[in-house]
């Protein structure tokens, strides 16, 4: 009955100290988030409001996208529309080629990860340098993000220290002090900012009323990426557009509190147009499936996601299996749902990586029914042809047993037999329950027999 996720999770848990550290690290973030939520009297009202704003915007997205594009153009930005990942990559490459760009610095963007932009550009001779420290670390290591907000959280300071030595970023061998490593990363990145020909940012929000791109960072790397090079390209998913500053105020209060347990990000930067001596700013609005997902009655609300990562931090399965155990590049509850919207055949294995504890949807700042949606995906696996045949058989068996009270009575009448089968035999029969559990003791009589004595 194993899936790609369950196999990867098993491997992950083979290192108990590391697994324990991973779980504790994310639980600590969840706890910081709880402290922030408890600190705001209106937290639950904010969640309700944030959800309502997103529901409204997504169901009127055509109007807001037009408004956003019109205002961005009025500001002097050049607006592009990309229908899919390929078109997005082509547009980016076209702009960079026009400006003869050899090197581009980039602040964090999961959208470019989704579109696999870096390898596309690198194959065409353009160097792309990640400037968010976590993203830079995994780029140097040749890895993918294991979490959407804390992409290198799976590595510790020794891993980073050794990596920096190998890449010549740090000079004092064996010095893995985080402050020292950050200082060396800063020096190295400073040089990249100064020598890059273009800077790319993602976008946390697009403001329809003003045409602003809003980027939230803790490191100021979006600001460095846009104020050193002369060319700024911003990549934004269609669903990131919101009506106005009043709406932004709601999300700005929640994003960082929910995501990392800080009252706000260090920087909340608004980009409206290029600075006087620079080239025009480019904004690329990316669809890549989103306009189709809006039409999905069971799953469209996933588009409300503001990518805070709190559903991952709270997910007991994510914390005990790690970001790499999921087949989609976004892990955890929202990643399970986004993966299924992207490709049901490739990502069906993730939907069983959930106990339906519903902590994700209780924590979600925009109230996406993440767990309920996972339940709904499960109901469709049989139609997709990706249901587990063993599981299907088990369920058909249960249905036969429970559907007939006579059969059920017979089965429960013989259950005491299980008591005389020693548990080691159960273990040897590759009973998956017995992998983690001792078998339960069955009683001499089921309740429906026992009750007869009491009723008299």
């Amino acid at each position: 009955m194993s899936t790609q996720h369950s196999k990867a999770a098993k491997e992950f848990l083979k290192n108990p100290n590391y697994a324990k550290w991973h779980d504790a690290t994310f639980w600590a973030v969840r706890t910081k988030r709880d402290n922030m939520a408890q600190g705001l009297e209106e937290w639950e009202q904010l969640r309700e409001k944030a959800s309502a704003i997103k529901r409204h915007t997504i169901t009127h997205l055509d109007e807001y996208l037009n408004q956003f594009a019109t205002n961005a153009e009025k500001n002097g930005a050049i607006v592009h529309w990309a229908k899919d990942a390929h078109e997005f990559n082509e547009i980016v490459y076209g702009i960079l080629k026009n400006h003869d760009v050899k090197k581009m610095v980039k602040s964090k963007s999961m959208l470019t990860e989704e579109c696999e932009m870096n390898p596309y550009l690198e194959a065409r001779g353009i160097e792309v340098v990640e400037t968010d420290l976590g993203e830079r670390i995994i780029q140097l290591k040749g890895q993918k993000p294991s979490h959407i907000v804390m992409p290198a959280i799976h590595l510790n300071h020794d891993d980073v220290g050794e990596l920096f030595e190998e890449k010549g970023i740090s000079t004092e061998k064996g010095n893995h002090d985080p402050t020292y490593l950050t200082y060396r990363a800063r020096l190295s990145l400073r040089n990249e900012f100064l020598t890059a020909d273009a800077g790319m940012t993602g976008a946390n929000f697009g403001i329809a009323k003003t045409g602003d791109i809003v980027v939230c960072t803790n490191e100021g790397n979006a600001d460095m990426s846009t104020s050193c090079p002369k060319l700024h390209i911003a990549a934004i998913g269609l669903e990131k557009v919101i009506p106005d500053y009043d709406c932004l105020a709601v999300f700005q209060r929640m994003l960082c509190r929910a995501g990392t347990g800080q009252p706000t990000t260090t920087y909340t930067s608004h980009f409206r147009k290029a600075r006087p001596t620079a080239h025009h700013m480019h904004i690329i609005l990316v669809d890549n499936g989103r306009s189709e997902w809006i039409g999905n009655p069971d799953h469209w609300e996933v588009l409300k996601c503001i990518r805070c990562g709190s559903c991952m931090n709270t997910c007991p399965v994510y914390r005990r299996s790690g970001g790499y155990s999921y087949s989609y590049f976004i892990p955890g509850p929202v990643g399970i749902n986004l993966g299924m919207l992207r490709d049901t055949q490739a990502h069906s294995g993730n939907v069983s990586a959930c106990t339906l504890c519903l902590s994700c949807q209780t924590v979600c700042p925009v109230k996406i029914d993440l767990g309920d949606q996972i339940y709904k995906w499960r109901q469709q696996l049989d139609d997709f042809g990706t249901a587990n045949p063993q599981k299907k058989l088990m369920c058909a068996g249960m249905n036969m047993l429970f559907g007939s009270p006579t059969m059920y009575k017979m089965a429960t009448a013989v259950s005491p037999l299980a008591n005389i089968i020693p548990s080691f035999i159960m273990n040897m029969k590759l009973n998956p329950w017995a992998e983690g559990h001792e078998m339960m003791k069955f009683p001499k009589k089921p309740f429906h027999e026992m009750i007869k004595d009491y009723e008299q």
Partner: protein
Amino acid sequence: MKVGLFIPCYVDAVYPEVGVATYKLLRHLGIDVTYPEKQTCCGQPMANAGFEKQAIPLAEKFEEKFKAFDYVVAPSVSCTAFIRMNYPRLLGGKTPQHTGEGHICETAKKCMDVVEFLHDVVQVRQMLGTFPHKVSLHNSCHGVRELGLSSPSEQHVEKFNKIKDLLQLVDGINVVEPERPDECCGFGGMFSVEETAVSAQMGKDKVERHIATGAEYVTGPDCSCLMHMAGVASKQGLNIQFKHVVEILAAGL
């Protein structure tokens, strides 16, 4: 007030003493409770595994068996939550031949977990059983986040816990809660046999936190969580005992 007792399949087969305790407790409180014969399963195991359609015939039987009662009471939060959340939709598309009209599910809203029934409907104030032990409270996910038996730790709401309120009516008891009081224990039905490693790890972590409170017993409103944790504890050689809330409420009655 007529109460129908629903004893879910695995409680019937594995934990009949929990059914007995529920029955005795309700009788003790003077409630007119009956156990309709030929009950089996609510359909939750198949539905959570992705075969919700197979739950429809079971839902129809359940509805037929229990619709005449004022309340349907079960010692299981996950079965109760499944019925309440899903039966109206599962039965909604059905058109009974005799009326030709769309079916309105009657039992879903009448179905209650025994804890919420005692707390909210009966509003028990009198002292119940005697249980002079330290007990660690297990807040089952569907009790917390679907039935609202306690305030979810994720939300900024006033703190409450209906299970704890009821346990205070037991003589001699000392109720404590583990660290991470409403984190999932890792059962999740089919999850426990499909994601064996994560399920066992979650179970171990949970049992260790219960043990760290110094309690002799773990108690909760759902036998499936208790069954999972007991199986993990026994496999890992962790020493603590498990009892359903009703067994403690009815202890010595």
